[in-house]
């Protein structure tokens, strides 16, 4: 079976550092032999876009209060999922990915997450902080290696 790979880059371009994923997508475009998806939508619709793929790398920002801005972290869907807690508007990405795994069965072989730490976003704007901008190239490099070697992102 041919494996189809995708790098899914998430972000919102008018919420500052939350645009991180979209910047990585721009950096990757045309440089790797995998589909690069640049998405700004919510959980369930992101999951639906992943149906054709057997290996997925999700690139996104992750909010931190005390952590170092611009630092990269690797996560699995299980680590991302917080099954305790309250449900608000829309489906969380973690649940959407879990739902996708449930519905796809064996067709979806792996989902990994590569995230850049950012400060919580509370203000509209297009400015990107220097530390996050510097992380874009590093993240793109790791994503390229993931595509080329097919190895888990956390090993790269």
């Amino acid at each position, binding site marked *: 079976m041919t494996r189809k790979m995708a790098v899914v880059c*998430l972000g919102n371009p008018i919420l500052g550092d*939350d645009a991180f994923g979209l910047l990585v997508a721009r950096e990757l475009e045309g440089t790797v032999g995998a589909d690069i998806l640049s998405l700004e939508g919510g959980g369930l619709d992101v999951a*639906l876009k992943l149906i054709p793929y057997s290996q997925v790398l999700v690139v996104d920002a992750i*909010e931190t209060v005390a952590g170092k801005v611009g630092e990269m972290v690797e996560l699995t869907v299980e680590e991302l999922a917080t099954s305790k807690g*309250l*449900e608000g508007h829309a489906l969380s990405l973690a649940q959407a990915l879990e739902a996708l795994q*449930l519905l796809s069965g064996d067709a979806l072989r792996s989902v990994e997450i590569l995230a850049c730490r950012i400060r919580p976003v*509370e203000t509209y704007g297009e400015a990107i902080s220097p530390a996050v901008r510097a992380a874009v190239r590093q993240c793109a490099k790791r994503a390229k290696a993931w595509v080329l070697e097919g190895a888990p992102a956390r090993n790269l």
Partner: protein
Amino acid sequence: MKRIVINPATRLEGHAKIAIIMDDNGEVQDALFQTVEFKGFESFCLGRNAEELPVITSRICGVCPWAHHMASVKATDALFSAPPPPTALKVRELAYNAFMVHDHSAVFYALAAPDLLLDPDTPRAQRNILELVKRIGRDTGAKVLTLRKAAADILTIVGGRATHPIFGCPGGISRGLTAEDISTIREKSRQLVELAELTNKVFEDSVASKKEFVDLFNTDAFVNRSYYASLVGKDGRISFLDGDVRVIKPDGSPFEEFKPESYLDHFEEASLPWTYMKFPYLKNVGWKGLREGEDSGVYRVGPLARFNVAKGFSTPKAQTKFELFRDTLGSPAHQTLAYQWARVIEILHAAERVTELVDDAELGGKEIRSPLGKVGEGVGVVEAPRGLLVHHYKADERGVVTFVNLIVPSTHNNSGICLSVKKAAQHLIKGTDIPEPVFNRVEMLYRAYDPCLACGTHSLPGSMPLKFELYDSSGRLLRAEARGL
């Protein structure tokens, strides 16, 4: 009881919080729904070309972008004195109804259905769409997703993208529909109706026909007797895109009706110290605090408000369901949980409307945009899935933005949400040992409104964090639950 001041400045990672404060007797004294709004949208847009705003504002939200896009487009129609030609209006309406199917169905299956279709004692860790899929079966779950994808496909055909459209522009739309587009949409519209009928059947079989759920809906603590506001069409029926704003009293009698552009004469906003989100109220009643009833200016918007304000739907299948709703719950229906039922019926109306519009002779017309006229001021009001959405802009003679004001549905509903959470908490919570099903009941009231609190951020964990905090009468934190890493 000691006075507790919850300083919103202390919240760090949470975008919203429910704080329950107990009195000395272990009874709920107060329940506060505290939210943080993203700041600075109005200043961010100043100096921009007004024609950019429909594309920019759709990015306020990753789940309901079409609502902002459409309200913004309507505001720029007015700002540029460019009423769109009939073809553009028909295409916009078709797309918007496809979006309503798309949005409402996600809310129902992801948020409402786990509450209503799973056992009440299902642990919170399992009260979600994953457990729902396991319960209804993978095949049915996959079918729902496939049918819902038809709505996304229609939005992509019409808007260029399902999520953040590049579609509407001042005076019309950027691209018309070809005969092939219309043929594809026609085929997919049948899938929308199939999804809508399936969803309504699921709801009626599992909820509306069951006495325990009707009794739950009618529980006094889950009822808020408020005013309601929504758009109504010329025929008095529910309208998502056009018409005047009608407001009714808690007893269902008319209160006022006005053109959308005069909203500032009718809505005013109050501020309370413990939350950033404002509390809109009816100016001609006045702000009397967080209270329900005819002498309070609190009003609600959204599916339940639309059902109460209008006299029904223009499409036959949805109208039949509307009458069943009224026969079951009365009119006006003040039962907050009934928002979920109204939502499900609206999916059917929206699907039917797509099937009607796709056969409209004007849909494939070539006149898709009017020339722009004098620049000034524009107000665009739509019924977003969650309720009345207002976009108000002013620009200078070059079309550069000088003023932006947005009122989103969840702001309109802020008072309603606070009242619902408080009443539910006071009814359900006795003492500090709260069983999980009780805790979930309080959340159900909040979820009924499906508040959208600037969900446009993607930063992981990919959803809006919501904290729950329980305080005793001395202000000591007894319990806290939250999502987040």
